């Protein structure tokens, strides 16, 4: 039995309209990763996170709570929760993420900045105007709330004079590159993922890693946005050997993430099935999407190390002084403390 669909979607829709995100985070949680990076404000080309990496610790906390409520007596109070959420940010309070996870995902963001800088790419950042792009609202068919929000994003991008955005996750990429041009008039920005930008810039590796991994392709990158070869080429040039899982590239299998809020139990089953497939190729898994990372890790035994592709690329292409370090962020190994993210 799912969490009550109507009230869960109602909260997401209310939040997007009122608080500019399906899962609103505080300014500190959204922007603390930028500390000390001196990212210029605005500009013709901007890095656009769409808040996805920042959101993952909160999504994990929310999913954990929802999985306990799924099918229980607490489900009957979702209508009341929606009413309360209209008055104050209940979803945000329910989803206080683990600070350690927040540190890890901040590290990925900082590594992406370090990678673009290593490739001599110039870009700015929109800070509080780097809004969530609305992917979950689109997937769930909340088109009325989505359109109003997308217009808000378009206005902000215009006000900042942005002509090109560099995205860092599949969901935001798909929204800005494929969905927005269909639902907004005159939305014609150039949208590329940082993986495409790096592939074109071809930075020289500073170190060859001599490590083996398998890649879990994101459904959206592989089947909607054509991002398949770029991460592979970058990893291979950095010395990484890739053992392909049987279902890879355009035939990749979903991590279960898209239904983690409504069907947490089923979502975990799909993730466990995918982890089994990946483990047959390698004990080290590289993900291209923060939601895939979170969902697969939730279902994986400790010996399977799952980490974001930026972690491997940063070790191969960035000097140690410019990137985030620590075993969790570098390889996905768990149970070890990370060293502080450099500022």
């Amino acid at each position: 039995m799912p969490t009550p669909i109507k009230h869960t979607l109602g909260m997401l829709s209310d939040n997007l309209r009122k608080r500019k995100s399906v899962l609103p985070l505080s300014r500190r949680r959204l922007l603390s990763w930028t500390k000390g990076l001196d990212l210029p404000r605005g500009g013709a080309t901007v890095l656009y996170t769409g808040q996805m990496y920042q959101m993952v610790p909160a999504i994990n906390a929310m999913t954990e709570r929802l999985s306990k409520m799924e099918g229980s007596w607490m489900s009957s109070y979702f209508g009341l929760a929606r009413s309360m959420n209209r008055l104050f940010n209940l979803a945000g309070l329910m989803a206080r993420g683990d600070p350690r996870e927040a540190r890890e995902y901040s590290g990925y963001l900082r590594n992406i900045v370090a990678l673009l800088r290593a490739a001599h790419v110039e870009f700015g950042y929109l800070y509080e105007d780097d809004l969530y792009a609305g992917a979950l609202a689109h997937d769930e068919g909340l088109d009325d709330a989505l359109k109003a929000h997308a217009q808000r994003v378009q206005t902000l991008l215009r006000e900042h004079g942005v002509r090109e955005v560099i995205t860092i996750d599949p969901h935001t990429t798909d929204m800005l590159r494929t969905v927005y041009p269909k639902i907004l008039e005159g939305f014609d920005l150039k949208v590329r993922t940082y993986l495409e930008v790096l592939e074109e810039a071809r930075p020289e590796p500073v170190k060859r890693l001599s490590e083996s991994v398998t890649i879990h392709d994101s459904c959206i990158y592989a089947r909607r946005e054509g991002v398949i070869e770029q991460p592979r080429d970058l990893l291979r040039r950095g010395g990484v050997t890739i053992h392909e899982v049987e279902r890879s590239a355009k035939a990749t299998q979903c991590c279960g993430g898209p239904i983690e809020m409504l069907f947490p139990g089923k979502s975990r089953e799909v993730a466990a099935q995918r982890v089994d497939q990946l483990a047959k190729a390698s004990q080290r898994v590289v993900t291209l999407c923060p939601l895939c990372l979170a969902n697969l890790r939730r279902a994986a035994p400790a010996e399977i190390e799952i980490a974001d592709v930026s972690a491997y690329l940063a070790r191969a292409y960035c000097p140690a002084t410019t990137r985030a370090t620590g075993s969790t962020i570098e390889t996905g190994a768990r149970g070890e403390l990370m060293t502080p993210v450099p500022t």
Partner: protein
Amino acid sequence: MKVDPSFAERVSKGTPFNAEACLNCGQCTALCPIGIHLLPRKLFRYVLLGAEEKVLEETDTIYSCLLCKMCEENCPAGVHITENVRALRVLLAREEMQLAPVEG
């Protein structure tokens, strides 16, 4: 079974719904990672027939689709399966759940 001839048209209002080309071959069902029992073949037939009640009975099924496009990528008839599922969600959000955002 009650039939509403305007149902398919209402579904298409939010986002285009296109399932006429479906060959009923079952490729989509075979590939579905979540093992959805009737998506999308039977469900789409209900829409085309105007069997609104049958569609509404499957609300959980409609929302459990991952939209991963595994089925669509391999559909020999080129049916836009995920956009069809989204069209049903748009209809459910607007008409059944009244999920217009609340102001204030």
